[in-house]
């Protein structure tokens, strides 16, 4: 038995939409197998992971809190991946964005005005964009592989933020715990409603998804991204510069990751501490692919990924399943997304070897 691929003349519109759902279905099937291996009831497992968090408002809100950074980073990565640039250092840009934004309340203690938050958001985006520009410039100037440099910069950013919150920016009244002093109210992202955990970062994510979707699908910039993403040479023929695009794409995805960072710092935590790096920058890669590199799709995909986080927490409490199972789920999901995407470009046939030789 063997698998044969036959290239489709045109991408299949059916599978372009269906492939993320097929991937989700396959992930759940793999989940059943995993629960069985762990000796847990698969029905309860799937219910706890994928249904239960949707049923109570507290969990739903936690999903929105987690979906916010995932969506913001995922949208940026979608732009970057579409243009053919591999930014896998979003985690670093997210951290630096958080640190840049946090610098304002840290250096301006006692200042508490409404201008503070917008300024922090802009600083966060600037920080992320600048940090994203490093691998872009190393690629365009020297030809250094952006996959490796952007990833290496994640480790550097983690160490840098760790140092900041432990040494120069540490709250002297923090009883020795790493972290800046808590931000004044003007430096905190307002909550969506009273006593909520979800904050306005989510609104930013939705608005940005719509804007980026419009730019990608309706404007020359989106066209330029698509052309350079499929062929640098055709792009040059069209008069587009692949080098400028690399810098643009890294700055955009870096800015959005930085925005996610400052939104997390100012909206969820209220200060910069040593627990900012939660791997959102890597999970957002899954968001981007599950969302088929479409900003609106990324919103939905961020929700799904956030669901696995909360579902994983619930499963740990209720069923004693390790929270690491969540990362396994996420990894499997990316595998199945990539596998299902094959159906868009190819017809897949399973041929028995006996029939072939006949």
């Amino acid at each position, binding site marked *: 038995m063997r*698998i*044969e*691929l036959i*290239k489709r003349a045109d991408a299949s519109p059916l599978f372009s939409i269906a492939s993320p759902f097929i991937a989700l279905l396959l992930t759940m099937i793999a989940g059943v197998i995993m629960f069985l291996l762990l000796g847990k009831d698969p029905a309860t497992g799937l219910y706890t992971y994928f249904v239960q968090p949707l049923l109570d408002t507290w969990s739903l809100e936690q999903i929105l809190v987690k979906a916010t950074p995932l969506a913001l980073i995922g949208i940026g990565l979608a732009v970057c991946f579409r243009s053919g640039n*591999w930014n*896998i250092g979003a985690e670093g840009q997210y951290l630096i964005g958080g640190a840049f934004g946090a610098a304002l309340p840290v250096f301006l203690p006692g200042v508490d005005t409404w201008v503070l938050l917008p300024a922090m958001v802009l600083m966060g985006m600037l920080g992320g964009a600048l940090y994203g520009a490093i691998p872009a410039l*190393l690629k365009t100037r*020297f*030809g*250094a*592989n952006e*996959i*490796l*440099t952007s*990833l*290496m*910069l994640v*480790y*550097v950013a983690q*160490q*840098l933020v*760790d*140092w900041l919150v*432990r*040494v120069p920016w540490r709250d002297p009244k923090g009883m020795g715990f790493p972290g800046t002093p808590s931000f004044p109210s003007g430096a905190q992202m307002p909550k969506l409603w009273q006593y909520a955990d979800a904050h306005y970062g989510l609104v930013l994510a939705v608005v940005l998804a719509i804007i980026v979707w419009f730019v990608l699908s309706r404007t020359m910039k989106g066209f330029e991204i698509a052309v350079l993403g499929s062929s640098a040479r055709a792009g040059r023929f069209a008069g587009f510069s692949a080098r400028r695009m690399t810098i643009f794409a890294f700055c955009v995805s870096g800015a959005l990751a930085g925005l996610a960072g400052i939104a997390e710092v100012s909206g969820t935590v209220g200060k910069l501490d040593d627990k900012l790096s939660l791997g959102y920058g*890597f999970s957002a*890669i*899954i968001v981007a*692919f599950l969302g088929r590199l479409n900003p609106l799709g990324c919103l939905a995909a961020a929700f799904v990924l956030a669901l696995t986080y909360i579902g994983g927490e619930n499963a740990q409490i209720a069923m004693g399943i*390790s929270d*690491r*199972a*969540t*990362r*396994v*789920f*996420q*990894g*499997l999901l*990316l*595998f199945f997304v*990539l*596998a299902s*995407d*094959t159906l868009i470009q*190819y017809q*897949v046939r399973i041929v028995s070897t006996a029939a072939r030789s006949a």
Partner: protein
Amino acid sequence: MDVWVSIILSVCAASTPLLLAATGELVVERSGVLNLGVEGMMIMGAVCAFAGAQLTGDPFVGALFGIVAGAAFSLLFAFLTLILVANQVATGLALTILGLGLSGMIGEGFVGQPGIKMERIDIPFLSDLPIIGQLVFGQDPIFYASIALVIAVWFFLFRSRKGLQLRAVGDSHSSAHALGIGVLKTRALAIVFGGACAGLAGAHLSLVYVPQWVEGMTAGRGWIALALVVFASWRPGRLIIGAYLFGAVNIAQFHMQAQGFGIPAQFLTSLPYITTIVVLVLIARNRRLTMINTPAALGQPFVPDR
């Protein structure tokens, strides 16, 4: 003198996993495939080697577990990229994400357990020779395996017909296919070999270098191995130089942390990663070298017409 011997020994220990993983990836890339999942395969090797050693009490069986785990894990990548022609970059990332998660789950029960160390070889008399005794005759078995592997890979690639075929596949898969060389088979074998090497590299971490199971203990070494392949411009001999350079940087930053010097530990910890970036930039500036040595089909999917 003894201080220097022990420093050199620690450099060897730090370099061996890098060298092993990079040697495997070099063969993979020579066949035209870019597998970014080295980190994932390595950590799977580390956890399975540790588990194998714990279950059997024998570190050599543990190392075998690591090799098999890395190879088996790489099959996932091979299936997706070769059969389903999924994007190699994205699939490699998926392998890394999945490997980090899965290893955490497998290793959950092993956290904090004392490891079973693979002992250094001790040849009576020879290992007692001053200086070279320890360096040449008194290291751990995986160290010797790593050196032997580099030589074997060099011989295979540049002195054997199968190796010539593998390089041909990496240069132009359509030409290789026209000549009747099995492109997918060659690549599948290369990927599995790369996985086995990464698995052994992980085994070295959890059985020799640390030796314990710590979640995420590869700490980017798989990625550094990928950078080393570029640094070596796909030549096995240059891998040794690169791996030992990185091993030395790593040991140097440990010693500096121990000494203090007033440099924040975080900056010293970043040093290997910053070095990687610097090295990638320096190598890439030599465009002729990189352009001529890069396997021409690297990262290109191959779908045979039937």
